[in-house]
């Protein structure tokens, strides 16, 4: 295994952490952005036989450039299947998705997520994107991994709107609601990694990111956060993991300020593709993919 990187960003740490949650041979439902980075890192390192499904109709792609969207043409690149959303979402409802990454603007102690509104539903302070596929994945995927920012206000006692079910109000609630997917197994945030207790379904802090103080984490959670008695520090990304992410996303479109760089700059955008083509091809070849 490659040694730990000395320089890495917080998003890179999060993506590497999620990459370690993906097991070889699995079928994962991946959105773009950070989850895609995690998936690519996993496939190029510990999980070469894992495959991605993409929401708008692709399975098993091996893209050599940055997908821009869950319905991006890039997601078709060298895929085993391309076509309809029904195929992908139908398979996931039927239990074929091992692991899915989802997110939200708010989360509660049972891993329920809100990505619809802040404030009152009918008169929102902030209108958000809505469920998209997040509710479907949270309902039916075998397990979900939640990735989100922790901004001090969004780990709440009560969600403004429950978009995507975690464990609802605790043990047995998913079953009673008729959900057949497994629910969340991890929450990877800008501060640490959380798990859910098998007895209570409540979130607890398992790992804390390097340099983050426990008191800060607790202050960023609106309920009385449970902390593992064996609290660990999150494993940093390896040099190889960081190299892979930077080869796929050299301008840090997903993991940094790339979007600002590219706004309105077509030449920079074209150059990004031109410069990353050969390194990506070489990298994939070296991995036998």
């Amino acid at each position, binding site marked *: 295994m490659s040694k730990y990187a000395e320089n890495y960003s917080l998003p890179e740490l999060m993506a590497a952490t999620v990459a370690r949650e993906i097991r070889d041979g699995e079928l994962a439902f991946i959105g773009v952005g950070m989850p895609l980075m995690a998936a690519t890192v996993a496939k190029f390192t510990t999980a070469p036989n894992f495959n991605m499904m993409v929401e708008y109709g692709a399975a098993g792609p091996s893209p050599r450039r940055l997908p821009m969207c869950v319905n991006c043409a890039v997601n*078709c690149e060298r895929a085993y299947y391309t076509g309809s959303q029904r195929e992908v979402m139908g398979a996931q409802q039927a239990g074929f998705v091992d692991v899915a990454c989802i997110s939200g603007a708010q989360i509660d102690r049972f891993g329920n997520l809100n990505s619809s509104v802040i404030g009152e539903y009918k008169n*929102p302070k902030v209108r958000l994107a809505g469920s998209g596929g997040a509710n479907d994945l949270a309902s039916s995927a075998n397990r979900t991994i939640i990735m989100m920012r922790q901004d001090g206000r969004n780990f709440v006692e009560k969600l403004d709107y429950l978009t995507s079910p975690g464990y609802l109000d605790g043990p047995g609630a998913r079953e009673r609601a008729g959900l*057949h997917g497994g629910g969340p197994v991890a929450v990877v945030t800008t501060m640490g990694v959380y798990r859910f207790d098998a007895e209570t379904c409540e979130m607890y802090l398992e790992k804390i990111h390097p340099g983050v103080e426990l008191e800060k984490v607790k202050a960023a959670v609106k309920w009385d956060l449970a902390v593992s008695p064996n609290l660990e520090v999150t494993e940093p990304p390896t040099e190889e993991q960081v190299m892979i992410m930077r080869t796929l996303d050299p301008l840090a479109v997903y993991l940094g300020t790339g979007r600002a760089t590219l706004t*309105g700059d*077509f030449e920079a955008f074209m150059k990004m593709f031109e410069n990353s083509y050969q390194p990506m091809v070489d990298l994939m070849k070296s991995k036998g993919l």
Partner: protein
Amino acid sequence: MRYQPIEAKPGRAKPAVKKVMTAQEAVSRFIHENTYLGMSVSAAPAALIWEIVRQKDRIKSLDLTITSQIGMSSVLIGTGLVRKLEMAYNWGGIEGEDKVFRRAAEKGIPRPIEIEEYSNFGMAMRWQAGALGIPYMPLKSMLGSDIPKYNPKIKVVDDPYTNRPVALVPACNPDVAIMHCARADEIGNVQALGLYGNSDTLARAARHVIVSVEEIVTQDEIRRFPNLTTIPYYYVDAIVHAPFGAHWRESTYYYHHDLAYGLDVYRQFGTQEGYEAWIDKYVLGTADWDDYCRLVGYDRLNRLRLSEQKYQKFGEVR
């Protein structure tokens, strides 16, 4: 008995006749005030959306049904054309926060928007029921969430076979569906390539279907690969030839997403004034899609095509 034979009503199948027309003609003919409009996400029907905006004074108001839209629905919403939005997701994707949508939903600018929400598969299954001619579909999403709480059309009931909860969603049959696909012949046999989301289902559910395509091909080209026909002619009313017709978004095998452009548009959409200035120049200020493409620059569009085809091309592994 009067010996008057029972005769049948005409069927729903569209005839096998030439259907190629301009976007201007297709929109004029099928989209009117209060049309219930379905819109695909993959690929984004930009050329058709632009034309709807050009005809907004005639059309006045639309009810829109989407599963998700990533960026493109804002072009309509910002005009004030959209009275109601049935949706699972409406946002900018990689281009970021959808300020146009936020202004409409939070402040009623330029017009209050009624929102009816589902999960992605929930909304897709409404089209599926519509496509199959059945009144509803049961599904295992949205259970336990707040989505049914704020949407009385979703009924959570006990399934009569297992006595376990299941969510029902009613069929959705839009008046008109618009979508952008790879290719079609002149009578409307459509072959979407790459990932195409729910465009196949939406076309089957809608009463009228307008498809813009990258290429018009011969009937023999369709018949070379009849397994690739995603929408047979009997669903289709109009074929609009619109190369680059999904720009700034992508069309698999044809061209790549123009991120530099999309980010810039979204920056401008940050204010209603910015939105209007952009619409005035790029949509209302262009006569048709070809004119828009000239304004963006065919040199730029061709570079996006080369970029896509460096990585993938129909029928090849690259």
